[in-house]
């Protein structure tokens, strides 16, 4: 058996398993494939985009607001910049936002939830009341309010949204931690002198991992829509940063005559959000303990 032969055999095995996954969980697969395309386009934008300089400050006064053509498949904006390029680069901005927001939110929310659920008592009450207050607001409104305090920029927007988002994770993890803590084997571990840290690491975290993962996948779409909305209102990304929500608002004033400007970024948001949501759905189907047990 040559090395090539073995490689080909493995590749075939992987493909077969992929085909199996597709049949078993079409939602997850479709979502993952679409997201993979978005990610690849975003990462390789500098190589794939027709006019990478148009992602920034370039101006081309001669090609202002041109309709879609073979030279500019998505048309151009009021500065003459190629919109296909800007939409591709917009993917980088959006993915960066989603990843950073969720990372910060999880970094704040999960430890707080662990502490609240594990130790209970007054600490729990205080943390949960604070959580309730934050959860008393729709995410968009609170993020807007916080973002409005700072000079608009992508970085500030990320912070604003992250600060709004962490309570969900706290509540989720707290529930898991609280239920695990009550179990007899945890109590006996404590009497044997096992440290809090070890118990959390060995018993609480593995149990909490699945719901948190599912929650993250379901949140990604929401974060994308909120960030696009904030940028649309002018409190997030600023020109020349290519961001889909910002581009829709920029295109809004030209919309009645130059339809392409606001349309394509909007489609990009829709497709990416759909991909995130499908992945979230698919993961929930697959990892939800209720379903797993009923198999």
């Amino acid at each position: 058996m040559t090395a090539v032969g073995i490689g080909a055999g493995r590749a075939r095995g992987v493909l077969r398993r992929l085909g199996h996954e597709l049949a078993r969980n079409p939602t997850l697969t479709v979502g993952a494939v679409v997201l993979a395309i978005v990610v690849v386009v975003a990462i390789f934008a500098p190589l794939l985009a027709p006019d990478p300089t148009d992602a920034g400050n370039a101006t081309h006064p001669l090609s202002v607001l041109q309709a879609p053509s073979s030279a500019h498949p998505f048309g151009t904006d009021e500065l003459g910049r190629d919109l296909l390029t800007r939409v591709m680069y917009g993917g980088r901005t959006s993915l960066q936002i989603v990843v950073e927001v969720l990372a910060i939110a999880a970094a704040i929310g999960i430890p707080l939830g662990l502490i609240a659920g594990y130790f209970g008592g007054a600490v729990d009450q205080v943390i949960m009341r604070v959580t309730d207050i934050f959860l008393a607001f729709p995410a968009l409104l609170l993020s807007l309010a916080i973002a409005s305090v700072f000079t608009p920029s992508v970085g500030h927007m990320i912070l604003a949204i992250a600060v709004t988002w962490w309570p969900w994770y706290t509540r989720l993890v707290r529930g898991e931690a609280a239920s695990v803590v009550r179990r007899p084997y945890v109590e006996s571990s404590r009497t044997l002198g096992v440290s809090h840290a070890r118990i959390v690491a060995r018993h609480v975290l593995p149990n909490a991992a699945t719901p948190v993962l599912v929650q993250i996948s379901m949140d990604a779409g929401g974060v994308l829509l909120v960030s696009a909305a904030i940028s649309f209102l002018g409190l997030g990304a600023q020109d020349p940063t290519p961001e889909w929500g910002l581009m829709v608002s920029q295109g809004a004033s030209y919309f009645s005559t130059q339809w392409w400007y606001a349309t394509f970024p909007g489609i990009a948001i829709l497709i990416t959000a759909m991909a995130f949501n499908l992945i979230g759905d698919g993961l929930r189907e697959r990892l939800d303990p209720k379903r797993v047990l009923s198999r």
Partner: protein
Amino acid sequence: MTRFVLKRLGLGVLVVLGVVVLTFLIARVIPGDPAVTYAGPHATPAAIAHARQVLHLDKPVIVQLLDYIKGVVEGNWGTSYRTKQPVLSNIGTALPASIELVVAGMLIAVLIGLPLGVLSARFASRAPDLGVRVVAVVGVSMPVFWLALIMQRVFSGSLHWLPAAGQYNANLYYTHPLTSYTNIPVLDALLTGNWAVLGSALSHLVLPALVVAAYPAGLIARMVRASLLDTLAESHVRMVRSLGFGERALFTRFALRPALNPVVQVVALVFAYSLANTFLVEAVFDWAGLGSYAANSLQALDTPAVMGVTLVVAVTYVVLNLIVDIVQALIDPRIRIQ
């Protein structure tokens, strides 16, 4: 039942109080001296000092907070720096417009989402199910501001079926002036028999309400489907089948009613979420609601106004949750015991 309500009410008040404190603290972070904003761009130092006194900014922070809370309870929510009018009356004019939009949107969402969800569950894994599921995913992934633009362009700009902006035709201010009781054009027109305004208000409501309805409709359809499928697997459904009831009876009563429980909970949450989306829709459709008021206030660094809006949103959310809890307890008698 009353103990249940009182307990929930108590918790709600606590949350609102917390929100007030939180917003107060956030407002302190907003850059810019409120006295300067209030006094205006060409104010003399004396005028600014006077403004500082009027706004009680010379007192310690804790006293300011307590004064504010006292004021809120009494009905004095401060004066808007921008409009120079009481914040509460500003909100009184702006809020009903948003409520009109959100309620219309939610009604449409339930009227569309519920039957679609039932249809989807009834024909699970077959064509209607797939169709509904795709539409629902589009609904919950749709950027609201973009949908608003598209709908406006297509139905108003191109097809000229529906008006593009505003709550009703401005010409009617003169020809058929509307007396405001509730500040909700549709309601006021209905109450005063002002049919011209009623027709105009309804036609202006259609597009924005449809846009607001997109997300909740998708969500409701998905939730109803999931909940129904879960309920169908339960043993009481087997018993009802063994008594001779068919699919229609199941999907209209025996399986549907228990399945609605989790859906009701979601509807309230979505109501609050939709309030946020209405702000975006208001921007596109030039709707004089709370969203526009909030946007203008934020831009003008109008602290009392921003705090007023925040308070209203928080109270709305708490009240909504309370209503949901009560409705749930009514639908599902098991909850009352808790």
